[in-house]
């Protein structure tokens, strides 16, 4: 069974058709990278998958739960609130701008939802939190506030915060593009280390060599459609003209 299934997804903002007809599948534990030029609709796709945006048309399914599918008029009809609330625990999202809660220290950022949403005890939440902070190389920063951390450290806290809720798939929207080049490496290293957690990851990124190394599947998007998808090798060696034009900019690092 697929963990995530999106079929014939369409989304417009006013007259601008951002997603034209997108279909993709993510399996348990699969690592998928989404690459493509700016404005091609990558963020919009993630925002539809994580329910921050509603699709105009198409199917969205997590495991066997249908979150949205077309009604007879061909418009996406969403499931009731209860279903959506339940399915929301399956996925997490790491933002480009981290979006940590500035009034809470690192440990509170990581554990608050575990305590107040998942209703686990504080002790249990802090045990989960400490383990994750250790994994992120931040165990000595538990009492720091976000403004006291570097961008790379903040992003690692954000990753820990998302992981604390134990999602089956974690989405990343350009997790390193707000960072200085020297901080990008530490975050990419941490994301690579998540491979052994066996959770699925869907990563929008402009870091081509990272995408090539980590991905089970690479999706190349342009103008609201998927132009190529397949293994990293297949996609990066594709003869497709747009793919070649896009990759041309990265040739020196690949």
């Amino acid at each position: 069974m697929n963990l995530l299934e999106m079929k014939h997804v369409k989304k417009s903002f006013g007259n601008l058709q951002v997603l034209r007809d997108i279909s993709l599948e993510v399996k348990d534990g699969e690592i998928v990278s989404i690459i493509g030029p700016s404005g091609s609709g990558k963020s919009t796709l993630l925002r539809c998958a994580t329910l921050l945006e509603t699709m105009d048309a198409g199917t969205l399914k997590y495991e066997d739960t249908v979150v949205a599918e077309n009604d007879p008029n061909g418009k996406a009809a969403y499931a009731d609130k209860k279903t959506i609330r339940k399915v929301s625990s399956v996925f997490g999202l790491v933002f480009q701008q981290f979006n940590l809660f500035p009034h809470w220290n690192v440990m509170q950022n990581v554990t608050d939802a575990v305590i107040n949403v998942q209703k686990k005890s504080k002790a249990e939440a802090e045990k989960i939190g400490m383990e994750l902070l250790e994994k992120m190389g931040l165990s000595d920063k538990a009492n720091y506030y976000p403004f006291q951390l570097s961008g790379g450290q903040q992003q690692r806290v954000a990753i820990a915060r998302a992981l604390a809720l134990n999602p089956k798939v974690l989405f990343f929207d350009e997790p390193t593009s707000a960072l200085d080049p020297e901080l990008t490496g530490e975050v990419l290293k941490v994301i690579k280390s998540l491979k052994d957690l066996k959770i699925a990851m869907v990563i929008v990124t402009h870091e081509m060599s990272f995408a090539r190394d980590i991905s089970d599947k690479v999706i190349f998007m342009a103008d609201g459609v998927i132009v190529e998808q397949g293994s990293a090798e297949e996609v990066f060696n594709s003869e497709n003209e747009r793919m070649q034009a896009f990759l041309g900019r990265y040739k020196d690092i690949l």
Partner: protein
Amino acid sequence: MALSQIIIELLEGLAVSVRIFLITLLFSLPLGLVIAFGRMSKNNIISSITKIYISIMRGTPLMLQLFVVYYGPYYLFNIKLSPTYRNSAVYIGFIINYAAYFAEIYRSGIQSMPVGQYEAATLLGYSKFQTFVRIILPQVIKRILPSVTNEVITLVKDTSLAFSISVMEMFTKAKALSSSQTSMTPLIVAGLFYYVFNFVVAFLMDKAEKKLDYYK
């Protein structure tokens, strides 16, 4: 009349002023939040009504509003209220006026919050209520504290407007003492008391701001 007698009389008045001040804050701060929600409501009727309400409260003199609250029931509806109603009238007048100012402060604070905070909270599974109480409001309070301080300091001085419907607060007393004694002294002492009152308020608000300085 001895200075000590004047001071005692004025201190009695000061107690009334402080009570107006505290009761106004106690009710107008939460009421302001409710009005701010009304103002931001997606329901057009609710948001229009609150918008008009706020603009009347901010666009007309507080003294006039106190008159309307105090004399309104009689002139408009022929309801006779006991003279002690003047105390309630002062509270009502101040609360509905200040709530309007606080509502606008809350609104600007809430609208200044980055949308990313809401989106992160949604992704973590917080309900709308939890998001507001746990994540948005604490940050809004920090952002609006300087503007709230300004209003609170204005309120200390505004309590003297209660003299217009003859409530025996400090300014009313000082004015009466001054004319009966043909002396400036009661007014000067009252001025001193207002100054100290505000000094204490400013000190407390500054402490509150410092307390929230632990994050940026």
